[in-house]
């Protein structure tokens, strides 16, 4: 059967006809006027849509594999779950387009306008977004591994929980963007602007941050292990719980940062002082709250209590210990740290090493449990009434039996008051 001509397609779109599942493979629709077209699940594989007007079109679930869509207008278009693998969208206009869960692997989006576009859960592995306009776009939980975002303008964009390993962010503008809990291992962020950005709990292991600007950024609990710094700006950044190398360039380490847990500016230190003493001990109070079990240290059959604000880091071995943590106390098990046959009550627990307690409840009522890629946890966890906040990095090892929070004893209370 002959493929419909460009004129007939334009005519049908003008009439408002539904072209869902239409076979338009390899069709030449360059410059076609298809605004508002109903093309859900249509097959446009290899089609030429150069400079076409597809604004407001419904292309949900459509196949646009290797289509040539350069310079096209797709503003406000619906492209949910569309397959754009290898498509060319160079300089395309995608403002406010919905590309949630779309497949954009290897897609060329160079200089495209994706302002306020939705790309939640989108697959952008190896995509080219160089010099693209990404301001206010939502990339949360998207896969951007090995993608190129060099020179992208991504102010206020949301990359929370996105995967950006080996991605290039060089010279990009990420001012006030959100990268919370994102994975940016071995990413290159040379001369990138992260001023005022939020990178809480982001993983930047082995990232290149030469001349990057993190001024006023929220870097609490960021992992910078093995990252490279040279002429990097970190002035006024919030650094509570940051994991960073012990040796850093002077121009970097000399800058002042906010070490307060709540990032409220109540404790200022230079990064150099913070590295020397991660507790931030500019005053006696900080020193008092900091506890450290170093590599090679062994503590057996101990019972320890920690007050609010305390931070305990274990890089050695704790065996048959009981740790009673106040709600706002933190326990960090470092990469070399092991807690075996221990019970931890309450607190915020971050596991980069091992926590092993197989025979009973090992984690009793933690407010938060975060296990990094290197972390291993084998135990039973009893949630508190307020429920535990969990964070598990891909690759972590878990044998975790999670018990529901105890049911509120309303009946008993009612019976007692009666």
């Amino acid at each position, binding site marked *: 059967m002959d493929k419909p001509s460009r004129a007939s397609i334009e005519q049908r779109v003008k009439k408002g006809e539904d072209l869902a599942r239409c076979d338009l493979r390899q069709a030449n629709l360059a410059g076609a006027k298809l605004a508002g077209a109903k093309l859900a699940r249509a097959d446009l594989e290899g089609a030429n849509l150069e400079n076409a007007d597809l604004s407001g079109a419904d292309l949900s679930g459509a196949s646009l594999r290797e289509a040539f869509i350069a310079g096209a207008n797709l503003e406000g278009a619906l492209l949910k779950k569309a397959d754009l693998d290898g498509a060319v969208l160079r300089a395309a206009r995608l403002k406010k387009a919905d590309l949630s869960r779309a497949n954009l692997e290897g897609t060329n989006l160079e200089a495209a306008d994706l302002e306020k576009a939705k790309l939640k859960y989108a697959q952008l592995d190896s995509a080219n977004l160089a010099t693209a306009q990404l301001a206010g776009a939502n990339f949360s939980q998207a896969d951007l591994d090995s993608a190129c975002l060099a020179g992208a303008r991504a102010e206020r964009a949301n990359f929370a929980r996105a995967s950006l390993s080996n991605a290039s962010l*060089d010279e990009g503008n990420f001012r006030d963007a959100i990268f919370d809990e994102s994975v940016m291992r071995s990413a290159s962020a040379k001369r990138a602007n992260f001023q005022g950005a939020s990178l809480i709990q982001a993983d930047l292991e082995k990232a290149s941050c030469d001349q990057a600007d993190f001024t006023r950024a929220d870097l609490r609990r960021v992992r910078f292990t093995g990252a490279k710094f040279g002429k990097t700006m970190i002035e006024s950044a919030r650094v509570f719980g940051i994991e960073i190398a012990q040796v850093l360039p002077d121009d970097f380490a000399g800058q002042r940062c906010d070490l307060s847990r709540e990032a409220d500016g109540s404790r200022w230190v230079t990064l150099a002082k913070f590295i020397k003493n991660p507790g931030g001990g500019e005053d006696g109070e900080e020193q008092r709250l900091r506890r450290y079990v170093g590599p090679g240290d062994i503590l057996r059959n101990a019972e320890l209590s920690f007050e609010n604000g305390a931070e305990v880091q274990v890089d050695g071995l704790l065996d048959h210990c009981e740790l009673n943590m106040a709600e706002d106390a933190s326990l960090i098990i470092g990469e070399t740290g092991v807690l075996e046959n221990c019970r931890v009550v309450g607190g915020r627990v971050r596991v980069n090493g091992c926590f092993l307690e197989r025979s009973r409840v090992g984690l009793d009522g933690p407010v938060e449990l975060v296990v990094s890629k290197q972390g291993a946890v084998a135990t039973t966890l009893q949630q508190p009434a307020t429920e535990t906040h969990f964070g598990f990095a891909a690759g972590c090892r878990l044998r975790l039996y999670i018990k529901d929070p105890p049911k509120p004893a309303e009946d008993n209370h009612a019976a007692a008051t009666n």
Partner: protein
Amino acid sequence: MKRLVMMLGFAGLMLAQRVSADRDQADQVATTFRGYLSARALRGPDMVILGKSRAIKERLRALEASADDFERASESEDPEARRHARRKRQAEVAQLNLLLAEFGEASILTEIERCSVQGKIERLGRWLSEIDAS
């Protein structure tokens, strides 16, 4: 051209710095162009005797093979295998484009730029048949 050849004499990193480009992209450009230059240097009198179609056919066969590899890799769950196959296919497309540019075939080059890889293979196949027939 002379300037480009000089630039590509640099390693990928130096090229990236020189043109302010992403390191991966610079590496890819350098590898592609160096491959093209060495293939050109090795070309014997065959090119003159048998014509350009033979050289293009060879590159087209290489592109077909890398396209098949990519199809197989895209079924795989391994993102690294997909990345590698995609890069290899891109490199083959670039080599073919360079060859067409060297022969001054701007018209077919512009035409296939808008085609999918399969579309490029089919269109070039037809174009070569037309050349052979004429």
